[in-house]
C-alpha cells in the first residue's frame, strides 16, 4: 500500500474545461450495448443497471409492504385483549412480515446495490453472467408473488418466519401455508445464490487494470464477503425447506419424532443459515458506512486493511454461532460455552470497524450531508443493537430474554440500524448516480429526523417489555400485564417512522421530476462509479479505466492511462487476473435475450406445481430443459457478428502490463 492515506482533494476532477480527445466511438458503443427499445428491451435486457433498478424498486415495495404489516401488528397490540385481528390473521401478519423483510427485502436490496455498483466500482462494462442475474430477478419476483398472493387471499403462512418443525409439519399445519413458505424460500435462495456467484466473479475477474486486491473499494469487499456467506449459508435453508416439503408432501420423516426424525434437526439447519443471514444482511450495510464515511470525510478510510479483515473475519465467525439461537433447548454446557465465546468474539471485528470510522471522521474534513447524517443515525442505533447482542450472548441472560420483545428490539436495532439506516444513506448518496438528479438536503434531514425518532420510540420500549415478561408472537396480552402503555408508545413511534418514509418517497418523487441535474461526481467522492456520467451509459465507461489507488478519482494522476482496443461492434469486456488485476483476455458478453425470462417461467411452474403434485417436477423439467438449452445455444455467428476465435491468439502470452505501462 504505497498511496498516502491523506485526503487528496476534489480538484483532481475539476479539469472539465480541457476536454480530452475522444478515442472511443461513443456512438458505436451505444449501438452495441443498448437494449432494443420498448417492452422487448425491458424483458430481454441484460444490463446490470436496469436489472438492479428493478430489484431496488421491487425490494423497496416489499419494504413498504412489510412496514404496513408491522403497523397492523402494532395497532393490534396497542390494546390488551384487542379483537381487531384474530390469532389466525395475526400469525399470518408476523410470519409474512418476518419472511418478507428477511428474504424479500433485506437480502435482495443489498444485492441490488451490489448488482448496480460492483461492476461500476471495479470499472467493468457489465456484471459477470448477466443473463443469470436477469434470471435471478424474475425468480425473485416469483418469490414475492409466492408470499404475497396467498397472504392477500388470507391463506398466508402462519408458522413464523423460522417455521419450526414440528409445528410446520402436515399434522399441525394441514393447509398449503407451509408449502407456500417452503417454495418461496426456494425461489429467493436460487435467486440470491445466482447473484452471489455473479458478484464474486465480477469482483475477482472484471476489475480495472491496476485494481489489485488492496485497492478494491470496501463496498465491493463487503459484497464479496456477503456473497461468500450466501454461498455457504443458503444451501442449509434449501436443504431444510426441501426436507420439510418432502415430509409434508412425500411422507418422509426427517422431523417426525415418532419415526426416527428429530425436531432439533430443523433448528440446526435453519440457524446454520439463519445466523449467518444476519451478517449477510448487515455486512453490506457496514460496507456502505465505510463508503459514505470515506466520501464525506474526504480522506482515505483509516485502517483499510483492518476494516477489510474485519469484514472477512465476521464472515468466518458468523458461521460459528448458530447455536446461540438454541440456548433454551437445553444443550450440553460445553457447547453453550463455545457458542457464547464465539458470539462475544464477533463483537471485536465490529468494534474495530467502529473505531476506524471514528478515526476517519476525526482526521477528515467532514461534510455533513444527508447520507452522512443517516450514517450517524446508524452509529446510534447499531451500537445499541451490538451492545444488546453482547448481552444476548450471555447464556443466562439470553434464557430470560430469548423469544421476548427484548430480542425483537435487539434484532430491529441490528437489522434496521445495520442495514436500513445505511441503505437510506446510500439512497441519498447514489440517487444522483442512479437518476441523474439531486435530492433535497432539507427534506432528507427531515425524513431522517422523523425516521430516527420514530424508530427509537417504537423499538426502545421493547427492551423493557421483554425484560418485564412480554413474549414474542403473541396476538394479545392480559390487561393487568402492565405492558399496555409501552405498546401504545410504540404505536406513536410507528407514526413517526411512517412519516419519515413518506417524506423520503416525496423527496424521491420530486427529485425525479424537478431535481437539479447531477454532475458526474456531486459529492466529490473517489470511487470509479463517480468517473462516469450520471446515470451511466449502457456501456458504463466510455474509456475503460485503469486505477492507481483505492479512490481512483482522487488518486489517479492526470496521465493515468485508459484501456483501448476493446471491440465496439460486440460486447467486448476485459478480463483481468484475480490478484493484481493485470489484463488477461477479452471476452464477449451476451446480447439481450428472452431465455432468462422463459427459464424463470418454467422454474416457477416447477416450484409452484410441486406443491400440488410431485409429478410437476417431472413435467416441468421438460420446458426447463428446453429453455435452458435455448439459453445456452449460440446464435449463428454471422447473424450477430460473433467473433471467430483466431487460432493464433489462443496461446498468446499475457502481456501482464503494469497499469502505467505502454503509451499509445
Amino acid at each position, binding site marked *: 500500500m504505497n498511496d498516502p492515506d491523506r485526503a487528496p482533494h476534489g480538484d483532481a476532477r475539476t*479539469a472539465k474545461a*480541457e*476536454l*480530452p*480527445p475522444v*478515442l472511443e466511438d461513443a456512438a458505436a458503443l*451505444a449501438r452495441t450495448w443498448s437494449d432494443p427499445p420498448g417492452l422487448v428491451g425491458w424483458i430481454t435486457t441484460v*444490463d446490470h443497471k*436496469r436489472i438492479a*433498478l428493478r430489484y431496488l424498486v421491487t425490494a423497496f415495495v416489499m419494504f413498504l409492504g412489510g412496514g404496513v404489516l408491522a403497523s397492523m401488528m402494532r395497532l393490534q397490540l396497542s390494546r390488551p385483549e384487542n379483537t381487531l385481528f384474530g390469532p389466525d390473521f395475526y400469525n399470518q401478519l408476523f410470519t409474512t412480515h418476518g419472511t418478507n423483510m428477511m428474504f424479500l427485502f433485506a437480502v435482495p436490496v443489498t444485492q441490488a446495490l451490489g448488482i448496480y455498483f460492483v461492476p461500476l466500482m471495479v470499472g467493468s462494462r457489465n456484471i459477470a453472467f448477466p443473463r443469470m442475474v436477469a434470471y435471478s430477478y424474475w425468480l425473485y419476483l416469483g418469490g414475492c408473488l409466492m408470499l404475497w398472493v396467498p397472504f392477500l387471499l388470507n391463506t398466508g403462512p402462519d408458522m413464523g418466519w423460522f417455521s419450526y418443525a414440528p409445528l410446520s409439519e402436515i399434522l399441525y399445519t394441514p393447509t398449503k401455508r407451509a408449502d407456500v413458505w417452503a417454495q418461496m424460500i426456494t425461489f429467493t435462495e436460487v435467486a440470491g*445464490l445466482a447473484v452471489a*456467484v455473479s458478484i464474486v*466473479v465480477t469482483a*475477482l475477474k472484471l476489475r480495472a487494470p491496476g485494481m489489485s486486491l488492496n485497492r478494491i473499494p470496501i463496498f465491493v469487499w463487503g459484497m464479496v464477503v456477503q456473497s461468500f456467506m450466501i*454461498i455457504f449459508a443458503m*444451501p442449509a435453508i*434449501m*436443504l431444510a425447506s426441501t*426436507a420439510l416439503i*418432502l415430509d409434508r408432501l412425500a*411422507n*418422509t*420423516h426427517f422431523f*417426525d419424532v415418532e*419415526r*426416527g*426424525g428429530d425436531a432439533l*434437526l430443523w433448528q440446526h*439447519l435453519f440457524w446454520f443459515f439463519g445466523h449467518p443471514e444476519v451478517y449477510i444482511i448487515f455486512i453490506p450495510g457496514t460496507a456502505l458506512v465505510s463508503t459514505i464515511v470515506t466520501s464525506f470525510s474526504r480522506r482515505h478510510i483509516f485502517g483499510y486493511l483492518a476494516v477489510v479483515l474485519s469484514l472477512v473475519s465476521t464472515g468466518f465467525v458468523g458461521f460459528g454461532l448458530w447455536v446461540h439461537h438454541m440456548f433454551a433447548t437445553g444443550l450440553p454446557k460445553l457447547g453453550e460455552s463455545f457458542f457464547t465465546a464465539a458470539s462475544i468474539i464477533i463483537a471485536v471485528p465490529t468494534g474495530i470497524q467502529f473505531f476506524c470510522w471514528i478515526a476517519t471522521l476525526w482526521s477528515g474534513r467532514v461534510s455533513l450531508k444527508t447520507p452522512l447524517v443517516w450514517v450517524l443515525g446508524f452509529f446510534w442505533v447499531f451500537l445499541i443493537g451490538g451492545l444488546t447482542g453482547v448481552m444476548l450472548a450471555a447464556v443466562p441472560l439470553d434464557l430470560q430474554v430469548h423469544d421476548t420483545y427484548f430480542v425483537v428490539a435487539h434484532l430491529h436495532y441490528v437489522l434496521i440500524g445495520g442495514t436500513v439506516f445505511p441503505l437510506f444513506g446510500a439512497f441519498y448518496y447514489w440517487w444522483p448516480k442512479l*437518476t441523474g438528479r439531486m435530492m433535497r438536503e432539507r427534506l432528507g434531514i427531515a425524513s431522517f429526523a422523523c425516521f430516527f425518532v420514530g424508530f427509537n420510540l417504537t423499538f426502545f420500549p421493547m427492551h423493557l417489555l421483554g425484560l418485564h415478561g412480554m413474549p414474542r408472537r403473541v396476538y394479545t396480552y392480559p390487561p393487568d400485564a402492565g405492558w399496555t402503555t409501552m405498546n401504545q408508545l410504540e404505536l406513536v413511534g410507528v407514526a413517526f417512522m411512517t412519516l419519515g418514509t413518506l417524506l423520503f418517497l416525496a423527496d424521491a418523487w420530486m427529485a*425525479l421530476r424537478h431535481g437539479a441535474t447531477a454532475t*458526474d461526481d456531486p459529492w466529490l467522492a473517489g470511487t470509479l462509479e463517480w468517473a*462516469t456520467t450520471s*446515470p451511466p*451509459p449502457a456501456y458504463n465507461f466510455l*474509456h475503460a*479505466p485503469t486505477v492507481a489507488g483505492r479512490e481512483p478519482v482522487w488518486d*489517479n494522476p*492526470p*496521465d*493515468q492511462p485508459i*484501456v*483501448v*482496443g476493446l471491440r465496439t461492434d460486440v460486447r467486448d469486456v*476485459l478480463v483481468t487476473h484475480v490478484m493484481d488485476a493485470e*489484463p488477461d*483476455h*477479452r471476452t*464477449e458478453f451476451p446480447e439481450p435475450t428472452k431465455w432468462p425470462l422463459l427459464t424463470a417461467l418454467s422454474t416457477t411452474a416447477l416450484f409452484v406445481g410441486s406443491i400440488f403434485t410431485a409429478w410437476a417436477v417431472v413435467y416441468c423439467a421438460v420446458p426447463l430443459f428446453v429453455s435452458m*438449452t435455448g439459453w*445456452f445455444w*449460440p*446464435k449463428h455467428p454471422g447473424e450477430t457478428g460473433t467473433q*471467430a*476465435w483466431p487460432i493464433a491468439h*489462443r*496461446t498468446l502470452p499475457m502481456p501482464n502490463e503494469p497499469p502505467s*505501462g505502454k*503509451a*499509445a
Partner: protein
Amino acid sequence: MTAPQPPTAGQHAFAPGRRGAARTIDVSMLAPGGFGHRSLMWWGTLGLVLIEGTMFALTIGAYFYLRERNTYWPPQNIAPPDLLWGTLNLLVLAASAIPNEIAKKAAERIDLRAVRLWLVVCLAFGVAFNAIRVFEFLHLNVTFSNDAYGSIVWMLLGLHTVHIATDVADTAVLTALMFIGPVEEKRFVDVEENAVYWYFVVATWLPIYGVIYWAPRII
C-alpha cells in the same frame, strides 16, 4: 424510477491525456477468451461447486445427526443397502474420469474431432451410470416413507442423482452443439468447464457412497 438516460456527450472522465499526451493500454492483442481459472466460466463453475458441495456436506451431516438420535441404525429389521450396484456405479463413475480428462485436454487443444468423439464416450458413460442408479434405488432395502433413516438415505442418493442426471443432460446438449451448432472457439471453454463439473459429480460420489453403503455396516 426512470430508466437510465443516454449519456450526455462530452463527459469523459478518465479520458486520456487530460494534461498531456494520451496514455493507453491497448488490449486488442489479448486473446478473446481463456481456459481454466483464467475464464469467467471456471469461476462460475467453482461457485456452483461450492454451493452444491455445501449442500452435500450438510446432508451428510444431517445423516449422522439423525443416526446419533436413533438407537438402531438402520432400524431393526432393515438391512443395509446391497453393495453390488452402488459399488459398480463407483467403478463406472471413476472410469468415466478417463474419457472426461481426454475430452478436456482435446478442448484445450481446440481439437473439434477429438472433442466430438470423447464427448460421445462420456455421454455413454453418463447413460450407463444413470441406468445403474435405478438399480441402486431398487436395492436400498428401505423406502423414503419408512422412517427417518429411509428418508435421509433417499435424500442423499436423490441429490446425487439430480447431479448425474443434469450433468448428462448438459453433456448431451454440448455434444449436440459440437456436431450441429455453430461452433465457436469459446465453446471449447464450455467443454472444459463441463469436464470440471463432471469431476465434481464423480468426486462427491466417493463420500456419499461411503455414507450410504458403508456407514450402516462398519461403525
